[in-house]
């Protein structure tokens, strides 16, 4: 396989993977309004757990890590996703219950830095600053894949998983739970006054979103075969935020556009450019500056994103819900109807 195709499939993989990551953050931030600045920490937990579950026992490998159960591919990935969810429960119980937005954001960003610090320094857990490497490639043995043919196959697998997760997520966002999430995002006091247990719903949203984070992280470590702590500094969380804010908060089509534009074209395509002689890393640094600046410009000029959230038709109070006429059909949005006139449906900026 030629080098060009190798690059193309790498980009395809990152596109699908960041679509999954963006869906996870979108349900937390875009749908429920939880400003999860520690998102990349959940991705890393998913990645590390997927890694240590598929690696053989650490004795004699030159690396130090827990578990080492040699589990086959989809099982370790699933458990990686579930570990991220379990961690989300712990975080939510301590932080989410009692803190308002900016307090919570401070605690979460601190958490993100502390997780980085611990994984970077505490070798017996995930091999310290070296990170995990030589993680077995899934299917490689069964399908007789070599390093080159593995990449398109795994990009395809990731695509299939992304589509499955998209289907699940669109069911979630259209369900009554999804409407409750958006009600909390728009005004948590109103949602609480209507008898919704705000914390319980936020917890639910954190668990679902973190599962997606864990799956996305697990796919990352399976794709590249390695993962180290520098991959989860808070700046990485920002890239996922950029994906959903550029594409459009609160809708899954927007996330596809965002993943394509931000992650694939802006973050990963420049990584294939030849380095400028005498200035290693300059392209990468400059690229990050561009991503940050683009996001600010986007927030200013088009805060609703490239694909805005559909303004859901508000059903009148007491009106029967319209039958959903196929995918994309109108769904009665009772939240907007129940909320007082001042509260708006949709995530648009005031």
């Amino acid at each position, binding site marked *: 396989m030629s080098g060009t195709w190798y690059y193309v499939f790498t980009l395809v993989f990152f596109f699908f993977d960041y679509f999954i990551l963006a869906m996870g953050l979108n349900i937390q931030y875009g749908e429920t309004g939880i400003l999860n600045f520690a998102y990349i920490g959940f991705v890393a937990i998913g990645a590390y757990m997927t890694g240590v579950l598929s690696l053989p026992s650490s004795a004699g490998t030159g690396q130090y890590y827990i578990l080492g159960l040699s589990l086959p591919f989809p099982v370790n990935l699933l458990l990686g996703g579930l570990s991220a969810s379990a961690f989300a429960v712990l975080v939510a119980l301590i932080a989410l219950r009692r803190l308002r937005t900016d307090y919570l954001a401070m605690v979460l960003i601190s958490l993100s830095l502390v997780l980085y610090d611990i994984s970077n320094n505490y070798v017996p857990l995930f091999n310290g600053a070296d990170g995990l490497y030589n993680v077995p490639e899934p299917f490689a043995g069964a399908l007789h894949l070599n390093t080159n043919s593995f990449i398109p196959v795994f990009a395809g697998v990731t695509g299939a998983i992304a589509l499955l997760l998209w289907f699940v997520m669109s069911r979630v966002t259209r369900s009554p739970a999804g409407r409750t999430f958006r009600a909390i995002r728009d005004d948590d006091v109103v949602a609480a006054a209507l008898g919704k247990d705000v914390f319980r719903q936020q917890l639910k949203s954190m668990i679902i979103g973190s599962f997606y984070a864990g799956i996305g992280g697990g796919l990352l470590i399976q794709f590249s075969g390695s993962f180290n702590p520098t991959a989860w500094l808070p700046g990485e969380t920002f890239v996922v935020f950029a994906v959903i804010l550029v594409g459009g908060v609160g809708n899954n089509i927007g996330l596809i556009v965002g993943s394509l534009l931000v992650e694939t074209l802006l973050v990963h395509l420049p990584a294939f450019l030849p380095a400028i002689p005498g200035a290693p890393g300059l392209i990468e*640094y400059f690229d990050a500056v561009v991503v940050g600046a683009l996001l600010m410009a986007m927030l200013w000029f088009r805060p609703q994103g490239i694909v805005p959230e559909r303004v859901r038709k508000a059903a009148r109070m007491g009106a029967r819900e319209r039958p959903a006429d196929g995918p994309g059909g109108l769904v009665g949005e009772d939240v907007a109807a129940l909320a007082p006139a001042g509260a708006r449906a949709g995530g648009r900026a005031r």
Partner: protein
Amino acid sequence: MVLLAFASVEGGQGQGMQLFWLSVGFGLVTASVLAISAVGLSLQFGITNYINFAYGDFMALGAYFSYALNNELLHLDIWVATVIGSLGMGALAVLLNHFVLAPFARRFHKTFYVLIVTFGLSLVLLNLEYSIWGADVRFFNMSLDRAHHFGPVLLTTSQIIVMGIAVVTMLAVHTLLKVTRLGKSMRAMSDNTSLAMTSGIDTKRITTITWFISGSLAGLSGSVLGITEGNLTPAAGELFLFVIFASVIVGGVGSIYGAMAGALLIGLATEVSAAYINPAYKLDIAFVILIVTLLVRPSGLFARPGRA
């Protein structure tokens, strides 16, 4: 034989005490750096009512300004360079507020937007630092330090100067807030912005001045952090950020005196613990204290009524 064993236990205890007092000295130095940075962050939070997530990068950038004046441009004395570099960071903070943060804060009422903008600003500033100065560790150009004994505590000349700077800064902030008209206006604005505005306080001017002070204190704390740590990297400020957050939350967000007390507590706790646990995790102790505070007294030690 028994005597010998007794003597060695005695010696062990003496060493333990010595280590303890040494770490107290380091703790006071860390607390000094923390106090300057936490007060800078709190002042700005009190006025604008949102957290500046780029504050760690303000610190690093201020330190690099000092570094440039000290090593690259004018070859100034490190302390002169620190003062000028910090004021330069203050000026930059004013510009960033005027052209980036203030427009967003005016336009969007939800805190989300401006928090994400400060987060984005952090990414931009960090990578600008990397682009200009690279990822290599840099060192300030300063004369060799001499050690001084104060009873059991051992401190170098530069550590004493850093502590002096912190004390002077705290007294200056206290005087500013309690005595001057500007400080009274700042306190009024922090309590209730619209009421302050209707009372004839020029809130825009106060906000600008606050950003200048906050940026200068960020630059100052970043520079003295570089001096006490002995080196400088672009990510230094960002990694220090959660320790500042811990001080601020433990003290009570928005309370200046709380930030000072929190800085003292966290500074001593991190350094003293480093004498007993692996020093690589000393900063994580700050996070543990943060979590305990959240569980026991989420509004902090010096909570302001009606906040958090």
